[in-house]
């Protein structure tokens, strides 16, 4: 019994430490872990390691945290094949408690919104904290409209399509065996996925939080399988999961735990290449509407950005480039990265203010257009 009790403590310690590291570990997973240990009767840490990995973890992204936690508890990783030795039990401090700095302090104060024209047109870069506190609640209310694509899932219709045999049989039964061909199946429609790619380099600092907020509003409204969000810093980070927290403050806290490299340098081409070869190629971008938010200041090779944009354009249904600096008077897309990317972009719009976010949302509901010199080479002017 002594050993069992120790095992129990061990199971709980590992689960607790994982939770402290930000991994979601439901009770069911802990029970499965305990059962797995019972079935496996591991005599070495390796067995324990793999049993925990198979039961406590269900996302590849969490494997790193699991390894770190396991190493913290047992002192080594990857677990070497060792002669039977009892794992050392270490007390784990419950981290994260009281570490939430005034999370809801901001939300409570705000009662009424001001719909003033000034706030609506003001550049995000000139916002103070007060303006932001007001604006973020307005962004929460922006809803990206659905665009539909045809789907293989069939639905019932009265107009002729494929004969719905199942219904025809039932109707025949109801009509004394007389088969009337009046029930049909036609192709259905499904919403297109929306993908946000956000540049979080230093020059995008005033704008990034507004677009993250926008991405959160879209995710909250349509669910994480319809809306995917990635940020491009010195590396690519997927924020879809943290953003699927319903409460925006909790979502932003969760983003903090994934620790993207905020406001450093960005090599857009490399980041986009990572996206294209990884999530993009596996289908996240396939047939999707991709909203790429960046000022196009490329520190890397503009040619790479160009060729990766071409790949993205081939995968996606539509690529919308949002450049917060586009609204500046006299702006020309002169940044080398921007110039390289533009030929592969369907829409090129501003995104510096609440007003322009609203325009962007409106645009997403309309059919794709083509910018001057862009995809398809139509003459439509840049907005």
């Amino acid at each position, binding site marked *: 019994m002594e050993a069992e009790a120790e095992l129990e403590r061990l199971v709980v310690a590992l689960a607790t430490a994982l939770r402290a590291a930000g991994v979601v570990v439901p009770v069911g997973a802990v029970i499965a872990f305990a059962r797995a240990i019972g079935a496996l009767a591991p005599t070495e840490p390796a067995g324990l390691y793999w049993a925990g990995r*198979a*039961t406590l973890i269900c996302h590849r992204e969490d494997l790193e945290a699991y390894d770190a936690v396991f190493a913290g508890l047992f002192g080594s990783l990857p677990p070497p094949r060792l002669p039977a030795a009892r794992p050392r039990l270490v007390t784990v401090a419950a981290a994260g408690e009281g570490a939430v700095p005034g999370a809801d302090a901001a939300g409570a104060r705000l009662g009424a919104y001001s719909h003033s024209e000034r706030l609506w047109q003001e550049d995000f870069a000139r916002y103070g904290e007060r303006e932001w506190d007001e604006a973020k609640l307005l962004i929460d209310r922006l809803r990206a409209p659905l665009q539909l694509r045809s789907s293989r899932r069939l639905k019932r219709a009265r107009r002729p399509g494929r004969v719905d045999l199942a219904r025809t049989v039932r109707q025949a039964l109801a009509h004394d065996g007389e088969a009337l061909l009046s029930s049909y199946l036609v192709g259905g429609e499904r919403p297109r996925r929306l993908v946000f790619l956000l540049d979080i380099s230093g020059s995008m600092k005033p704008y990034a939080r507004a677009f993250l907020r926008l991405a959160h509003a879209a995710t909250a409204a349509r669910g994480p399988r319809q809306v995917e969000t990635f940020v491009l810093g010195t590396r690519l980070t997927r924020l879809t999961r943290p953003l699927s927290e319903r409460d925006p403050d909790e979502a932003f806290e969760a983003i903090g735990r994934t620790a993207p490299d905020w406001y450093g340098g960005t090599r857009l081409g490399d980041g986009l290449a990572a996206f294209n070869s990884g999530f993009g190629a596996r289908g996240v971008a396939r047939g999707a509407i991709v909203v790429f938010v960046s000022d196009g200041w490329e520190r890397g090779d503009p040619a790479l950005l160009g060729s990766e944009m071409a790949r993205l354009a081939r995968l996606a249904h539509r690529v919308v480039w949002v450049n917060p600096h586009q609204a500046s008077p006299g702006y020309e897309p002169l940044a080398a990265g921007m110039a390289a990317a533009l030929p592969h972009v369907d829409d090129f719009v501003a995104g510096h203010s609440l007003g322009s976010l609203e325009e962007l949302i409106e645009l997403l509901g309309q059919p794709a257009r083509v910018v001057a010199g862009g995809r398809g080479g139509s003459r439509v002017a840049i907005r």
Partner: protein
Amino acid sequence: MAASDPQERAFAGVEELEAALDAAGYLADEGLATAVFLALELRRPLFLEGEAGVGKTEVAKALSTVTGGELLRLQCYEGIGLAQAAYEWDYARQLLHLRATEATGGSARQAEDELYSERFLVRRPLLLALEERSGPVPVLLVDEVDRADDEFEAFLLEILSEWAVSIPELGTIRAARPPVVVLTSNRTRDVHDALKRRCLYHWVDHPAFEREVEILRRRAPGVGEALARQVAAAAGRLRRLGLYKPPGVAEAIDWAGAVVALGRSELDPKTATVTLGAVLKYQEDQERARAAGLETLIDAAVEGGG
């Protein structure tokens, strides 16, 4: 538990299972073998995620060989539903039967009971997996579940929790012994947490160098030790180039096979160039491999190993 069932082959431990999978032609590493062992022992579905071509589907096939259970494969795609996955009525035959009943003077009301009998039931993999049978339980492979849509996932979750399908006209078909279930995903999207939580999870990575050499020797006929090492090393290096579609084990096997088919026993830069299409299937990737210096890469791989 599996061990108590005389119809099941039970494995004493992970190593024994590893050896059995090995004998069936699948080289599993310790992590995968542990996950498979637990799936059998705890009667839980196994959820395998990983890049295309790392051998996820092969796990189910090997498992079927090892346990002696029939392999039932359900390939998922967008729009897949109950009719393709579980069961469907044979409507055309039902209509014919209805006509025939009428012609011989029977009433449609009489025909109704006959129409929805097992005779007109078309069984699909999920139903087959749950039906009573003698001998070992089948191995149900739900392949590329990420391609199916949410509605189907919810339905799958229900089946994997209840081990039952209910057919309104016939009643509920419940498995006395749950099948071995393997789900695979290429991660084109995140599968719902609830479904993953029902399962044991394992991320399948590209194999380590020595393991890949072994796999090539087993799976590609006529491939010698030297060629297997060269191809594994070159494939490993290609994976590090940051390609659009890094070659999986399947591509490495194809590649080794292509070299053998050309009558060569060594991978030299020239042979690699003419057989590149077997391992890199995107024009951009071939470009990138050439730009990165394919010849140097092959030479280094041939000399330096993994």
